[in-house]
């Protein structure tokens, strides 16, 4: 039986359907859970907090959702070692909840995905490269060293910010899971001014992962722009074929012991 994965939906979440679609494509039994039904989260094995603007980013991106009743079971599950993945707004929520990097008490953030340098929303296609040994990140199974994934960065608040001593802890403690890279995996400056060029952080056990760019928005070829999509124009099978971002979800499925086809 496939692992059951919850995709919690807060008021203002907007990426839940494509996230569920990507999870289904890699063989996971994923379902949406509405903010009014936190008790339903008890029956799931793992959690994926999707992108969007929970509570309109009121007060700070992710701050209100981090204290929402819907997060209580997620926090409890994270503390019990179950896998919790946050994408974009989901990553902001995990940081605000103190689950990543997880150096302090729950509910007391030590880092943040803060407003981008320059203060503007950025939407740009990126690649992210694994910077920790694959075994450091059990939430993603079967990765090779330096694994590279394509994704879309689309956020106004994606800049890792923390005091210098916390950034040292993030680096030395192996919390810097992914950095921005070019398509060959060479490091590039983060498009949002993120400290350490960070694209994703993980907790101490590698069971909670907060990633800012959206791999689910580069999960099928039709989500590409320009020449790559033009190259398959008229070829329905090719247009609907999985693309690089689906490999990220396949790694999540492998970690959960699920069959991976896409």
């Amino acid at each position, binding site marked *: 039986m496939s692992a059951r994965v919850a995709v919690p939906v807060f008021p203002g979440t907007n990426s839940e359907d494509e996230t569920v679609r990507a999870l289904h494509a890699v063989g996971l039994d994923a379902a949406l859970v509405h903010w009014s039904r936190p008790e339903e989260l008890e029956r799931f094995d793992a959690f994926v907090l999707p992108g969007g603007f929970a509570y309109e980013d*009121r*007060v700070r991106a992710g*701050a*209100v959702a981090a*204290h929402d009743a819907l997060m209580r079971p997620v926090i409890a599950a994270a503390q019990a070692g179950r896998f919790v993945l946050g994408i974009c707004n989901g990553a902001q929520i995990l940081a*605000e909840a103190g689950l990543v990097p997880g150096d302090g008490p729950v*509910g007391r953030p030590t880092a943040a995905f*803060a407003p981008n340098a320059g203060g503007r929303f950025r939407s740009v296609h990126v690649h992210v490269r694994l910077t920790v040994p694959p075994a450091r990140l059990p939430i993603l199974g079967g990765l090779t060293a330096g694994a590279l994934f394509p994704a879309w960065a689309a956020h106004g608040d994606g800049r890792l*910010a*923390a005091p210098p001593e916390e950034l040292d802890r993030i680096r030395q403690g192996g919390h810097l899971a992914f950095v921005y890279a070019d398509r060959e995996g060479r490091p590039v400056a983060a498009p949002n001014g993120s400290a350490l060029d960070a694209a994703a952080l993980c907790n101490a056990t590698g069971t909670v992962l907060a990633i800012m760019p959206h791999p689910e928005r580069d999960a099928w070829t039709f989500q590409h722009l320009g020449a790559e999509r033009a190259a398959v124009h008229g070829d329905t099978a090719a247009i609907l074929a999985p693309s690089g971002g689906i490999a990220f979800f396949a790694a999540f499925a492998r970690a959960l012991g699920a069959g991976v086809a896409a």
Partner: protein
Amino acid sequence: MSAVRTFAVTLTIPDNEAFTAYETLARLGIPVGRLVRADVWQFETDGGVEDLATTVGSFETIFNPNKHRLVERPSDRPEPGEVWIASRDEAPATRVAGRPIPGVRAIRRRTSWRLLDESGADVPPDVRARAVETFLCNPAFQVAIL
């Protein structure tokens, strides 16, 4: 001679953000009767900038007369009972909506919070401190100015 001039922009319509903050504080067990929020804009000027209030009020990104009240503050510090949340590493802006303001060298924005009890009085300092530490300010990149 430089000077800092401070303007507060408050909503004249219901403030959904303040209400959401109130609900979150209630969920955290922090007893607050009401929150009042304002955007605080600080303009560092070369001195005698004429009619800055009118200029500030002309920027729709700062002030919409249909829903905002714009007031110049006499002090560049928070009023008693008020807390300002600022970005720790904020680079001051020099433009608003892409436009410079003649005589203005730096522009900073803060969020003002005032926490009131059921009677409309300021909550005790320890309650305000708990609200700031647990929710209103993320110390990883923000600072609370009292």
